[in-house]
């Protein structure tokens, strides 16, 4: 007798594939044993389980490729978490900064739009892509010094930095530590400025009980693997402002006025009947460009990973806080050697990392210590670009430095580094890190360095 083979349905096949992917995960990724001195202690890394892999593969089976159902789901989850009205996935935190800043130049804003030559306040002790959209759009960055300990803008210096041409403040919450939003918001209101909150390193941080990103006009986030959640490459622009949301979406999607998603047409019901610019009436809305834009969308496969990561975010944040606490406990025995990180008053940081500044005259330098740690498989990082004005790309840029100078910024460039607090770190890895630092300090004290 012949055997009748009933073809499997799409759903059955998907379920089988998902089960296999789960099995694959346990073979390939499950082993996370740590051997002190042999296994590296990374400063950051992807933390995931079989769910991310299954979601990624599920999306790939759709073969929709561009933004789709997972992108929509991610944006909804992100809005729920942050309380934002609108969220737009983009392909990186840097793209998010570009889109957010360019949105403030939107013609939809009329007289309030930022223009070439306007001044934008920022800091030099940070990541370059907070600054780059300002420079690329022909505006003048004004650099204000930061505080050692919080690594955020010095509020008193900020007050002095605002001039008649100042139109915006564009600041990152450094390493997850919110800046003094009371002062910043007061100045924003007083001088009618725009505020862009770069939350790339601060997803889940709170200031006086409110999520960062909910204070300014528009905010950004990054999902690069080192960040609080990841989708490989990815970022997000979020806002409560209808106009900025409209501009951000257009700038992300080629600058087009049309808001149809991929595979759709005429959702507005006016595709061939409206008048735009000096185009002929009825010119196809799909090809009407109301902004100077780019294509900065993510693929749905990236978003599929992000959906699962969002579900883990509350756990990730708690782990980061706990690791931060463990490091503080470890470092507390060396108060004479290091300036330890300090949460801004009124804040509850979702820490990106553990920044430490080596005090002056302690017998070793930051670089000597981090070289030692690196040789003992403990990764560290400098506080990004140090003083960006001393970086080759920025030495010739038009800018202004606030009256107080950039003394602390230079100090950070020379003496500050950070350790990881990412949720993949175990207590054993943190204890090993503290032990390695202890050994180094002992060597210095014994003159064996």
């Amino acid at each position: 007798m012949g055997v009748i083979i009933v073809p499997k349905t799409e759903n059955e096949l998907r379920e089988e594939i998902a089960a296999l992917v789960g099995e694959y995960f346990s073979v390939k990724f499950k082993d996370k044993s740590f051997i002190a001195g042999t296994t590296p202690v990374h400063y950051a890394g992807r933390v995931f389980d079989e769910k991310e892999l299954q979601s990624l593969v599920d999306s790939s089976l759709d073969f929709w490729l561009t933004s789709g159902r997972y992108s929509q789901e991610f944006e909804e989850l992100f809005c729920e978490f942050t309380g934002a009205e609108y969220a737009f996935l983009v392909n990186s935190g840097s793209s998010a900064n570009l889109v957010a800043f360019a949105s403030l130049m939107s013609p939809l804003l009329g007289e309030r739009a930022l223009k070439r030559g306007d001044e934008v306040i920022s800091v030099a002790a940070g990541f370059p892509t907070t600054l780059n959209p300002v420079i690329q759009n022909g505006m003048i960055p004004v650099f204000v010094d930061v505080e050692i300990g919080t690594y955020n803008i010095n509020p008193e210096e900020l007050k002095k930095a605002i001039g008649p041409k100042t139109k915006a403040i564009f600041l990152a919450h450094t390493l997850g530590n919110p800046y003094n939003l009371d002062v910043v918001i007061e100045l924003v209101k007083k001088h009618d400025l725009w505020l862009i909150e770069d939350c790339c390193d601060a997803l889940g941080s709170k200031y006086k009980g409110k999520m960062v990103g909910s204070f300014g006009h528009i905010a950004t986030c990054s999902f690069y693997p080192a960040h609080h959640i990841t989708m490989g490459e990815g970022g997000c622009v979020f806002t409560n402002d209808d106009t900025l949301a409209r501009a951000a979406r257009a700038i992300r999607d080629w600058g087009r006025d049309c808001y149809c998603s991929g595979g759709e047409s005429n959702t507005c019901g006016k595709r061939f009947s409206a008048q735009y610019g000096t185009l002929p009436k009825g010119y196809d809305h799909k090809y009407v460009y109301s902004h100077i834009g780019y294509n900065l969308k993510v693929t749905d496969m990236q978003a599929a990973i992000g959906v699962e990561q969002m579900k883990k975010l509350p756990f990730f944040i708690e782990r980061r806080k706990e690791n931060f606490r463990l490091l503080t406990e470890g470092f507390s025995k060396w108060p004479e050697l290091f300036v330890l990180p300090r949460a801004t008053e009124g804040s509850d940081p979702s820490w990106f990392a553990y920044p430490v500044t080596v005090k002056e005259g302690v017998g070793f330098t930051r670089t000597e210590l981090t070289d030692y740690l690196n040789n003992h498989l403990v990764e560290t990082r400098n506080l990004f670009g140090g003083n960006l004005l001393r970086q080759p790309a920025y030495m010739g840029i038009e800018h202004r430095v606030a009256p107080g100078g950039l003394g602390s910024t230079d100090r950070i460039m020379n003496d500050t580094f950070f350790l990881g607090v990412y949720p993949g770190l175990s207590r054993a890895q943190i204890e090993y890190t503290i032990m390695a630092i202890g050994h180094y300090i002992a060597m210095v004290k014994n003159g064996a360095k």
Partner: protein
Amino acid sequence: MLGKILVKDIMPNPIKTEATVVSITPHGKGVYTVTMKPKGRTPRFKAGQFLHLSVDNYDPAGGFWPESRVFSIASPPGIETLSIIYSVKGSYTKKMEEALKPGLIVWLKLPYGEFIIDSCIHDRQDVVLIAGGTGVSPYIPYLEDLCSSERPKCIGRTVLYYGARLRSFILFPELITRCLNGVEGFQADIYIENETLDGLTVPGARIQGGRLSIDNIHNESKDLNDPVFFLSGPPAMIKCFKQQLIEKGIALCNIKIDEWE
């Protein structure tokens, strides 16, 4: 976040969602109110915007949206359900009439549209709402908002002109009465085209027989403060009324229409 800016053209991020039909209220002669509960969070929208509804299955993994029709959202923002009002006029609405039952899953995508009254008026400008039949739908959320205690009171006057063929087609009479009782300066004129007025009660409203007339509306609007005229209803009515308003010297920027191709 810091203060919002009101402008035209608001529909930053439409989404697609499954929704379950919760109830269908017949108003007679093929006019229905359909109330739906979206799966998950109800998408945000603004009073006056519209949605796409499809009674066909949509595979989000496949990406291509099935045949659908657009309907103004006739429920206020901020509640769990979404309502539309439709009138059976063509093959698709006939299909809706046959298919839509409580418990049925439909697909929606929203929000769309620029017919957002709050975004079209400046401070203190008065509002003239002109509705033909189910064209009252986009005004319902606005009227609900007008009655809301959270609404700022420093707004201009609102006048509703609402015409329908039959008495039973005058929808939400209790909402109109609430506005008349609770909203300062609110006025409602109701016209019934093909029936006597017997039995139609909307306390506080002026009810009369016959059709909406731009001549009357224009005459009565002379005391209003720089009024903006909103037109919603059958395409022929919108086209004709718009032209008449232009001929009466109303600036184009003060005529807002709810039209789709």
